Every structure is written in structure tokens, then in C-alpha cells.
């Protein structure tokens, strides 16, 4: 395999709140033998404004994105919703959009499942596919559709030693984060988060794993508020556990 120069895109809220998710993503990509760089002047892809309909307000942010990431073979990001925005909703150049990958699809489609280092996570987990992972990035087919089943995150998690997946009722139902929706429709959003966390707890899982930290930020906040005992981890954190940890 030819080593790639990867530009690591760490979205704003992961930069601020979830340093360890960024570290796990970086280490995992480095362990695969790639040169990973984190362009220091990066900020955001413009999704917060774009999702609210403020397209003109995205332009300067997108110009900065190009300056930061133009030189890399691949741009990898541990957030499905940000990659959805870059690829399908932004006015970024086609060349940038085509080279931007969400971590799960990068590992599954570009690197290949067999190349991944062994990982060990002896816990019961339940998988939360974000709405963009399901209905835009094809991590799994949306359950509403009558098409053959496949699952990229499950294919990755199947290689993790000791890990058991349990299912959450209404797994495909949106958890209610929705970006600015979480504050403009705060009551509905919070109730959706509470319902999601309640069903996750009923699944018997110890951890909720997802490729989207923004959903987990909302779900974790809901669980904590309602006294629901649940831990939330990004899929990079599980895939980057080392077998020797056991």
C-alpha cells in the first residue's frame, strides 16, 4: 500500500469537547502507516450556518477550508454529519469534496477491513448510526428501504475482540440533536434525547458507540440529566484500543 498524506479534519465541537476522539482518530490512521497532518488553522466546514439556510455566511469558512486542506491526498474526519455537509451541501470545489472521507467509510472502503490493527473491547455495546451516516453516507441502508442489508460500522466492530453488539429499539429514530435544532426546538430535541437514552439503557448495553460525536454529545447530555447510567464512545476510540490492553 502506498502511504497517503492525510489531512485530519477535526470539527469544532470535537476540538473543544472531545480531544480524546481526535487523538484516537490520529493514532489509528498513523498505525495504518499514513502520514497524518493536522492543519493548524482549521475551524469548521460551515455546517452550522449551512443547515440553518445561511449559505452566504458559509463562503468565507469554505475558503478557509480549501486553504487548510487543498494539499492532501485525502481529508479524513471522524464525523458523518460534517462529511455529509462537505460532500453534499457545501460549495467547496469538487476535488475537495471527492477527497473528503468520514472515518468509517475511509477505513472500510479505502483502507480495507483486513488491514486494521487488532483491537480489544470486552463490553456490550449498542450502535448508534447517525441520520447522515444512514441516509446520506450509506454506512448501512436506511431501514425504511427494501434493499439488501450491509453494514460498514458492524464490519469494523466485528473485528474487535470481546465486543458484543446488542440492539436498541427504534435504533434508526433520530436522537434529536439536529445542530441548531437542539436550541431552536429545545423542548422537542431534549425529549427525543431522553427517549433515545432511555431505549439505549433498556438494550442492556454498557456503551453506545457511534461515528458521530455530535449525536453522542446530545445523547450523553440527555442521559446525564435523567440519571441514566450509560457511557458514550466514538468508534475510533474502540478501534484504537490495543489488543495488549487486555
Amino acid at each position: 500500500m502506498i502511504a497517503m498524506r492525510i489531512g485530519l479534519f477535526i470539527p469544532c465541537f470535537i476540538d473543544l469537547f472531545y480531544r480524546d476522539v481526535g487523538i484516537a482518530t490520529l493514532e489509528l490512521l498513523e498505525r495504518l502507516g499514513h502520514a497524518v497532518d493536522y492543519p493548524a488553522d482549521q475551524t469548521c466546514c460551515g455546517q452550522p450556518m449551512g443547515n440553518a439556510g445561511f449559505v452566504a455566511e458559509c463562503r468565507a469558512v469554505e475558503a478557509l477550508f480549501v486553504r487548510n486542506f487543498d494539499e492532501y491526498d485525502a481529508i479524513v474526519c471522524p464525523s458523518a454529519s460534517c462529511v455529509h455537509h462537505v460532500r453534499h451541501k457545501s460549495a467547496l470545489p469538487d476535488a475537495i469534496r471527492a477527497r473528503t472521507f468520514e472515518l468509517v467509510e475511509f477505513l472500510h472502503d479505502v483502507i480495507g477491513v483486513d488491514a486494521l490493527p487488532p483491537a480489544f473491547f470486552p463490553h456490550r455495546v449498542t450502535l448508534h448510526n447517525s441520520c447522515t451516516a444512514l441516509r446520506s453516507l450509506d454506512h448501512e441502508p436506511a431501514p425504511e428501504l427494501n434493499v439488501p442489508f450491509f453494514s460498514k460500522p458492524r464490519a469494523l466492530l466485528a473485528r474487535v475482540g470481546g465486543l458484543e453488539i446488542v440492539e436498541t429499539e427504534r435504533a434508526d429514530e433520530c436522537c434529536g440533536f439536529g445542530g441548531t435544532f437542539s436550541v431552536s426546538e429545545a423542548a422537542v430535541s431534549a425529549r427525543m434525547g431522553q427517549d433515545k437514552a432511555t431505549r439505549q439503557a433498556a438494550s442492556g448495553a454498557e456503551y453506545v458507540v457511534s461515528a458521530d460525536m455530535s449525536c453522542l454529545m446530545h445523547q450523553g447530555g440527555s442521559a446525564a440529566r435523567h440519571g441514566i447510567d450509560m457511557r458514550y464512545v466514538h468508534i475510533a476510540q474502540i478501534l484504537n484500543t490495543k489488543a495488549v490492553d487486555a
Partner: protein
Amino acid sequence: MKRVRVDHAEGRSHPIAPDGADPAREPQPRGAVIRGRRPVDHAEAAERFLAAPDHLSFHDKRLWDLREKRDRESHGIPEWEQLRQLASDIKEYALTRLDDLLEEFERNATANGVVVHWARDAAEHNRIVTDILRTHGATELVKSKSMLTEECGLRDHLQEAGVSVIETDLGERIQQLDNEDPSHVVVPAVHKLRSDVAAVFARTIGTDPGRDDPAYLAESQRMSNRPLILDARVGMTGANFLVADSGAVVVCTNEGNADLCASVPAVHIVSAGIEKIVPRTGDLGVFIRLLSRSALGSPITQYTSHFRGPRAGGEMHVILVDNGRSERLGAEEFWTSLKCIRCGACMNTCPVYRRSGGLSYGATYAGPIGLIIDPSFNRRKYSLLPYASTLNGSCTAVCPVKINIHEQILSWRRVMAEHHEPSMTKQISMKGASALLSRPSAYRAAVDGANAVLPHMPRFALYNPANAWGKGREIPQAPGQSFHAWFKARRRKP
């Protein structure tokens, strides 16, 4: 006589017991407050719906049950996705040849003895109906459910003209008697508990206030409505499909009330939006297979009736209504919303709709399809509706005619922003976010500042009334160091 329980869509629904206390004690939450053309505040109405746990729980479970049944039915048909594509393509064909097909329909219907009327808008539609009623000296109109007549405000118009309207669909009748709009395009009273219905019927048709079993309530409504249907001179139905090559009107119902309205009175009026046209009789095979499966998760409606002409000695009128549809057809990003066959699948699957109730949208059409249709009637009044969505896309995935609903919701947000409809606060905060996120040094100062301060903030300072996030959720624990700072420190190491 032995009573047989009919195994139809509603009959197969699981009985849902409301969680918690006696539901009779919980008043029914009412819908959005309408203040003229001022923006309808969905979030405010939703908050009141959420504060009624019995109603919320029933509504959410009942509609999710419909979504699950829809999944089961659609997964049982191997060619389901091809059917959706076919339906979408037929609608695209019809909408791009609307003028020819409508004239073909008019020719064929006229040849069958039907009188075809054209109505540019709601006012013209209502005037045509009033004229027909006057001609026949009718002071009563029995009608089946029609979203178009809701859209046209027909009931209020006729009331002012001295005509009393009798809705014959059970759910629609409940809503009429309670002086409320339908909250769902297929199940109009789904936001009500049976105790609510018992209270409405006790007040209006004299049922026993202590009895709320559905069979008794439904039977009582039937007994009070039946004589009105038998006496009516004019009946009205909507239309699910207009067939161009035969001039037929197709109406799909589960209660059979539309057939009574169409067949018992001598005069039958059909109100139909111009987008209801399909080219050929054979096309119905595609749509009939999709409609009820998508709507209620049942293979077919109990009645699929084809009306081709007046009964002997009677009259049949079809009013083809535009009311903004031609204009929508010319809207590049929104014209495919005219493909909608009003199955309500997008509402059933919408997590926001299920938790806020249809009346919280304050518009004729609620739920995802409403978010993309309502603003075309009044941009200012419905300017907040496109924000009543998480853009999760489930609506698009269930849509039997493949309307990209969630993408159109986002497009409407863009239209609203371009026309400066969002609040000043929102406009300023978006400009502020843009300025911050396009300047790396300002952004770094903000992130690192937050990481330095947040871990040490006392609860009362973080969780204040201005913090909409904190009202229902905890703020994540900031680690005290951003990823950026970690990466910089790591790079400095030898």
C-alpha cells in the same frame, strides 16, 4: 347476530394504553396560537404538547406503530423500491404534461356526463360549490374527508352562506364537532385520546359522558350521521386520483363514507387538486399498491371506488382546483412536492411530528410534507416551520413517490434566510458564527478560552434560563485542553 371484527388497517392496530395516570384528567393540548400573518411558533405549541404525557405517549406510539406496519408491508414486496421509482416517474410525467392531461380528463369526463369546473383559487372553488348548492336549494352538504377543502376553508365559507356542512369521516367529524382542524392527513383526530372524543361527543351528540369505549363512540357517531346522509341532496368527496384516459375519479377510504356521500344524494361534487391527475387507468395499479401500505401499513383501503359519471337522474361535478399549484410547479426546487399522494407516511415516521402533534404546525398540512408546502401559501406566516425538523431524512426514505422532502426543508431555510425571515437574533448569530469560523486566530482564542473557563464554571452560571441546551441536557465536560492544543504540544516534543 354474531359480531365480526373486520381485519383492516385500524382493526389490526395494537391497543395502546396510555402510560401513567387516569387519562381523563389530562386536558387535551391545543394547537399553535394563530396571530394573523405573524410567524406560527411551532416550538411553543410543541412544548405544550410535550407537557401532556398521556397524549404525547399515545400519539408517539400510535404513529410509530403505523411506521412499523408500513415497514413490514413494504419489506414484503420485493419490487417495492421499483414501485416507488415508477410512481415517482409517472407523477413526473403527469406534472410535466399537466395541461394536456387535464384537458384529456375534461373531454372524457364531459363525455361521461360529468360537469367539469376550473377554479383558479380557494375563493373560486368555494363560489362554485356554493352556486351548485344554491341551484339545488340545498342547505346541507354531506362530505367525506378532503385536505383540499381544508386548504380552501370551505367549511367556514359555507357556514357564512347558511349551509351546514356534515363531515362523515369519523376522525374528521370528531374534529369538526370539536371545532379543530385535522391534525393528520389520514388520521385527523390521532392527537386525541378516546376520553377526549367521549367528552366531545357527550357535548355535541349526546353520548353518555361516562363511556369512552371506541365501539360505542363510533356507533353513536354513525347513528347521528346516518339520517343526515339519507336526507342530503348534495354530497361531496375529494379525489385520490383523476384518470385522464377515462375521465374517472378514484377515491380510497376505509369507512365507506365517501361512497355514501357520492351515491346517496342526487348530486355529487368532487373537489380535486390539479396535481391528482394520472395518465392511464393502468397507472392506478402502481399507486393503489403504494398508498395504503405507506399510509397505514395495510395492503389496501377497504374501499377503492371509481366514479365515472352521475347516477341516473343525478349530477356529478368535478372542480379542478389550482390554488397555488401552478406557481409551485414553476418553483425549481419545490415542484416535486406536487407528486404527493397524501399518504401521511412522512408524518408517521417524523420524530418531531410524533412529539409535537399536527396542530402545533398551525397550518393545513402538518409534518414534513407541510413544512415544504405551507410556506408556498404564505412565506412569512410559515417562516419558522422549515426549522421544525432535524433533517434526519426518514421522511424522504418512506415517501412512496420519492419526494426529497428533507432536502426541500433545507432549501426552504435558504429561501427564508435570503428573505431575512429568521429573527434578528438568529441572523446576527449566524453572521457572528461565520466571522468567528473564518478567522483562525479568533476561533482559537474562543475554543481555548472555553476550554480554560468551562471546567471551572459553577452550575448556576452555566445552567441559566438563556441556555436552551441546558434546559433539558447536561453540557459536555470540557477536558481543559483542546485537540489543537494537544497536537501542538505533541509536535513540540522531540
